[in-house]
């Protein structure tokens, strides 16, 4: 590509990368929670994000509500859906071999995407609420992405606080460290699993709500998020929740940098190559091992 790269463009890349990174980190946090507590990789995580985006779209369309005010509602809807999925299907494969949980959540993912195709059609939907951007010197801050950054960072921070400070959060961390010992201490592990899955789905839903203002909504928008969330977890180190934040920002930066030199489509390939390289060189993630 014959494009001269100016410092301003690089600065823009850093800004856009960090803005995207918080969103990645928040969505990935959900996947990391389920994996940490149940050792289940939820392939349906991305499709749950898609359902969150549709929830926000329909509330916005029906009530004309500010899409950012729909975030709590969308999170509640997705929390209930997630807890239901855990209660009806996923709880049966928590102790099964990995193959079972991967295939089960893969099946759920396909079913959700095609239910959405049937119910909502594959027409592109958009929530046009905030457009344009703030400028600061040579840098542009897209308004919708800036708000998404703030909300995502706040929600991720809240989840951290919840895990660290509350009794329920402690029970979740205890379950992820040792289910048997948690059980002995009187923790209702099944309930903790339902709540964890619910929180994870709610985080995906919040991601969907924020994304719906930025890009067009369609049933197949979600799957790539499962992959990206996992990439964020691998970058940060599996089971290392603060690492997820670093991983998210790193993924955002790499993608933005790649799209500066290559096409947007190929920036996904660059993210993929990053995953393979990390697995090759440092499979425990950049911050290393499992710290819950």
């Amino acid at each position: 590509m014959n494009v001269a790269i100016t410092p301003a463009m690089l600065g823009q890349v850093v800004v856009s990368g960090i803005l995207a990174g918080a969103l990645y980190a928040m969505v990935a946090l959900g996947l990391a929670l389920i994996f940490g507590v149940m050792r289940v990789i939820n392939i349906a995580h991305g499709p749950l994000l898609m359902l969150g985006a549709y929830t926000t779209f329909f509330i916005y369309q029906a009530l004309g509500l500010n899409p950012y005010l729909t975030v709590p509602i969308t999170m509640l809807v997705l929390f209930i859906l997630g807890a239901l999925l855990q209660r009806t299907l996923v709880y049966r494969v928590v102790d099964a071999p990995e193959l079972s949980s991967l295939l089960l959540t893969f099946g759920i993912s396909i079913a959700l995407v095609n239910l959405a195709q049937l119910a909502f059609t594959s027409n592109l939907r958009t929530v046009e609420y905030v457009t344009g951007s703030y400028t600061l010197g040579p840098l542009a801050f897209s308004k919708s992405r800036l708000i998404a950054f703030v909300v995502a960072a706040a929600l991720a921070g809240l989840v951290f606080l919840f895990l660290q400070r509350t009794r329920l959060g402690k029970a979740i961390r205890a379950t992820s460290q040792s289910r048997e010992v948690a059980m002995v201490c009187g923790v209702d592990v099944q309930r903790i699993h339902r709540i964890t899955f619910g929180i994870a789905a709610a985080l995906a839903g919040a991601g969907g709500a924020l994304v719906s203002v930025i890009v067009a909504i369609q049933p197949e928008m979600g799957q790539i998020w499962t992959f990206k969330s996992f990439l964020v977890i691998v970058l940060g180190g599996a089971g290392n929740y603060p690492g997820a934040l670093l991983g998210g920002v790193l993924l955002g930066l790499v993608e933005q940098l790649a799209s500066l030199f290559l096409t947007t489509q190929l920036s996904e390939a660059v993210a993929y190559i990053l995953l393979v390289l990390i697995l090759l060189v440092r499979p425990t993630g950049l911050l290393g091992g499992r710290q819950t």
Partner: protein
Amino acid sequence: MTPRGTFRLGLVVLVAALAVYPAVGTGYGLRAVLQIFMWIALAASWNLISGLTGYVSFGHVAFFGAGAYTGAILITRAGWSWPTAALAGGLAACVVALVIGYPCLRLKGPYFAIAMLGLNEVLRALVSYFEGLTGGGNGISLPTLEATVPVYYAMGLAAAAVTLLTYLVITSRFGLRLMTIREDEVAAEAMGIDTARHKLYAFLLSAAGPGIVGALAARDQGYIEPISVFPLATTITMIVMVLFGGKGTVWGPVLGAVVLFVSQELVWARFPYLHQLLFGSIIVAVVLLMPRGVLGVLQQRYHLPRTI
């Protein structure tokens, strides 16, 4: 005659019937059987890695696409004949498998599954990007050639070869080691099995079939483009066929491919989304209710040998 003798006789009769079918069959029938061959080869290949080692490949269609593009490029640019181009397609798929499998299969856990989840999209993006070689979104048109009957035989050979390979693997020490990895990887290591290497070998074997079949399908259809050779739906169909028939068995993928392809042709092709929804539900239902698949249940109930 012993049951085993009857089974073998039936197999010989079936193969003979399929071999003479092009002489008597209709054009539509020929195409349908050709497609069934293709699905048998694809499903049986997926079974080799995921059914035997328990490592789930969510992107097996990537090998199909890699083979299709390799074959099409060699035929159009280098003037290769399609049978050699098909073998080269298989080889290309193995190279891709080596690049992905080496870093991911050294690790235990879900890394491999997730890496495969992204592989398909990445190959599609790469193929679209390198327009000079692949024609980008315009795809590649292959020179016209009336080769349905030869491709029929080649596809049949591929299906038979992968099924035979599965039989040979399952009855060998190598296969027993793979199944040990599936049941308990730590125990397998403790017994001295080089698990990383065994998983990688199984993965390479499972990539060759889709590569060859992809190149054959490209020759058969005469035109390929990124969307047509990298559909996620193909991976889903492979997985459903194996799970339904019975994963880790020799004939499960064959059974699954025949039953699901026929029902798909008769009923479901008319309702694409409902069809995919059904496939998703089948995966969920089989995992929860019948993890061994139809053949696994029959094996258990009638005490059939493991090689059925």
